[in-house]
C-alpha cells in the first residue's frame, strides 16, 4: 500500500528554517551597532562560532548516523552560534569560542537528542560554561569606540583572536561589572556612574545603543509573530518592577530600572533567548510565570549574587522549572470550563 497521508493537504507558509532565519535577521541591526561601537570583534566572533557550531553539529549527526544536511540547514545551530557570539566578549580568542560551541552544541543540545529535546538553551549553556571556566576572558570587554576615535583594525583584530597579540591594554569592565565592583568597594550608584566614563546617556556608552537595536529586532519578531509577547513582557516587566522598588527604597545602592533594562543582557535575553520555545514554558500562563521568574532571578543575581549579570543564570534556572510550570498551567479544554 502507498504511504497514507492524512489531511490537511495544505500548509501555511511557516517553516522551521524560516523561523530560525528570522531570529538571525532580527539580530542584524544589533550586530551593525555592535560593530560600530566595538569594532571587528563581533564579526570574528560570529564567523568563528558559526563555523564551530555547524562543524560540531555535522560531526554529531554523522556519529548518530542521521541525515546531516537537513539538520545543518534547519538554522537552529546558526541561531545558537550567533547568540553565543553576541554574548561573549568581542575579540575573544578562537579557543574560547571553540569551547563555548562545544558546550552549546554537543553537551547542551545533541547529547539530549538534538533540536527539540534540549532542556536548556544551548547558547546559554555555552555562555555559562565559559563564564565559570574562564572568568577573566569572559569579563574583559573591548572598550567602546568613542566619537572620532580609531578602532582596532581588521588585521590587528585577527592577530588578537588567533593569539599573537595581547588584548589587555584595550579592554575594560562592562557597565554592570563596574557598578558591582564600585558598590562593593563602598561607592554609591551615582558616584560610580559619574566616575567611570563607560556610562553613557543612561545605561552605558555603546551598550545602550546595542540594546536598543536588539529591542528593535525583538519588536520586529513580535510583529512577524516569530515570538509571542508573553515571555519578554513578563520578564522585562518583573525586572523593571523589582528594580523600581529597590531604587525607590535606596537609590544610592541600587541602580535605576532603565539601567537594569538596557545596561546588560536583559533585552537580548528577553526577546532572543527566553523566547526559545524548546527550553521554555509553552502554555500562555506558563510563559508569563516563566518570564517573571527570569526577571526576578536576574535582579537577585545582579544585586546580591557573585556574577555581574544574572540573565543567563535566570534563564537556565527557569528552563529547569519549565516542565513543571507547563504541567501546572495546562489550559482548560473546550467544554471543560465552568
Amino acid at each position, binding site marked *: 500500500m502507498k504511504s497514507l*497521508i*492524512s489531511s490537511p493537504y495544505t500548509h501555511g*507558509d511557516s517553516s522551521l528554517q524560516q523561523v530560525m532565519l528570522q531570529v538571525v535577521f532580527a539580530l542584524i541591526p544589533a550586530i551593525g551597532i555592535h560593530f560600530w561601537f566595538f569594532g571587528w570583534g563581533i564579526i570574528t566572533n560570529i564567523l568563528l562560532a558559526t563555523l564551530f557550531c555547524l562543524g560540531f553539529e555535522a560531526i554529531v549527526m554523522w556519529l548518530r548516523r542521521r541525515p546531516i544536511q537537513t539538520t545543518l540547514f534547519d538554522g537552529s545551530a546558526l541561531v545558537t552560534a550567533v547568540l553565543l557570539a553576541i554574548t561573549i566578549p568581542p575579540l575573544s580568542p578562537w579557543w574560547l569560542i571553540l569551547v563555548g560551541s562545544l558546550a552549546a552544541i554537543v553537551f547542551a543540545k545533541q547529547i539530549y537528542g538534538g533540536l527539540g529535546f534540549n532542556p536548556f538553551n544551548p547558547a546559554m549553556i555555552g555562555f555559562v560554561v565559559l563564564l565559570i571556566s574562564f572568568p577573566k576572558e569572559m569579563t574583559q570587554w573591548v572598550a567602546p569606540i568613542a566619537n572620532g576615535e580609531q578602532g582596532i583594525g581588521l588585521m590587528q583584530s585577527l592577530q588578537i583572536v588567533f593569539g599573537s597579540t595581547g588584548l589587555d591594554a584595550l579592554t575594560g569592565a562592562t557597565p554592570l561589572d563596574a557598578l558591582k565592583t564600585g558598590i562593593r568597594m563602598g561607592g554609591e550608584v551615582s558616584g560610580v556612574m559619574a566616575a567611570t566614563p563607560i556610562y553613557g546617556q543612561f545605561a552605558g556608552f555603546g551598550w545602550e545603543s546595542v540594546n536598543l537595536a536588539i529591542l528593535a529586532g525583538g519588536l520586529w519578531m513580535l510583529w512577524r509573530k516569530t515570538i509571542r509577547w508573553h515571555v519578554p513582557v513578563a520578564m522585562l516587566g518583573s525586572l523593571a518592577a523589582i528594580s523600581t522598588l529597590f531604587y525607590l527604597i535606596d537609590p544610592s545602592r541600587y541602580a535605576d530600572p532603565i539601567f537594569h533594562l538596557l545596561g546588560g543582557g536583559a533585552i537580548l535575553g528577553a526577546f532572543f533567548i527566553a523566547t526559545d520555545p524548546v527550553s521554555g514554558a509553552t502554555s500562555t500562563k506558563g510563559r508569563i510565570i516563566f518570564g517573571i521568574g527570569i526577571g526576578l532571578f536576574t535582579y537577585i543575581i545582579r544585586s546580591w549574587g557573585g556574577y555581574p549579570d544574572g540573565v543567563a543564570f535566570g534563564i537556565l534556572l527557569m528552563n529547569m522549572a519549565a516542565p513543571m510550570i507547563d504541567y501546572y498551567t495546562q489550559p482548560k479544554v473546550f467544554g471543560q470550563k465552568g
Partner: protein
Amino acid sequence: MFTATITLSLLAIIFGLILGYAAIRFKIDSDPVVDQIDAILPQTQCGQCSYPGCRPYAEAISSGEADINRCPPGGESTIQALADLLGVDAKPLDPEAGEVKPEKLVAVIDEQTCIGCTLCIQACPVDAILGAAKQMHTIIGPECTGCELCLPPCPVDCILMVPVKTDANHWKWPFPNPDAGLHEAQR
C-alpha cells in the same frame, strides 16, 4: 549519655507507633494479583503458555511458577503490562511458547468438508463453534479467539485460519511516516 539514649528510644517508639498506625489506617485493599494478571492476558485460552487457559497461567505467574513471557497472542504489549504490574523487567517472548502472529486470525470451517464429528466443539475453549453430531458445524466469527485448539482434533482438516477482514469500523490509521510529513505549502 543516658538522656540521649532515653530520648532516642522514645522517639523511636513514637515514630514506630505512628508508622504502625498509618500502616493500618491507610491500608490499600488491592485486587488479588491473580485477577489483575488475568485482566491483562488476552483470554485466547490457547494454552500455548503450557497452562490450560489464561486463568491457570495467571495463577502460575502470581505464584512465581511461570515467567511472564509465555503468551504469544498477547505479544510484547502484554509482557510489558505484566512487567509494569509486577514490577519486574520485561523480556522477549519465550520462543518455546510460540511466535507472535503478524495479524489476528480466526478459524473458519469449510462446510463442504465438515462431517459433523463435534470434536472441534469439545476443543473450543470459548464455545464459539455451533453444531451437533452429524450436522454441519460453523464458527461464530466474532467469538473466535484464534486459539487454534480446534485444528488438531479435526479428523478431516476442514478448519482454516483466515485473517480477520478489516472494515471501516475496525480500520486503524497507520503510524505516520516521518519522511513523508506534510504536503508542501501551497502557493
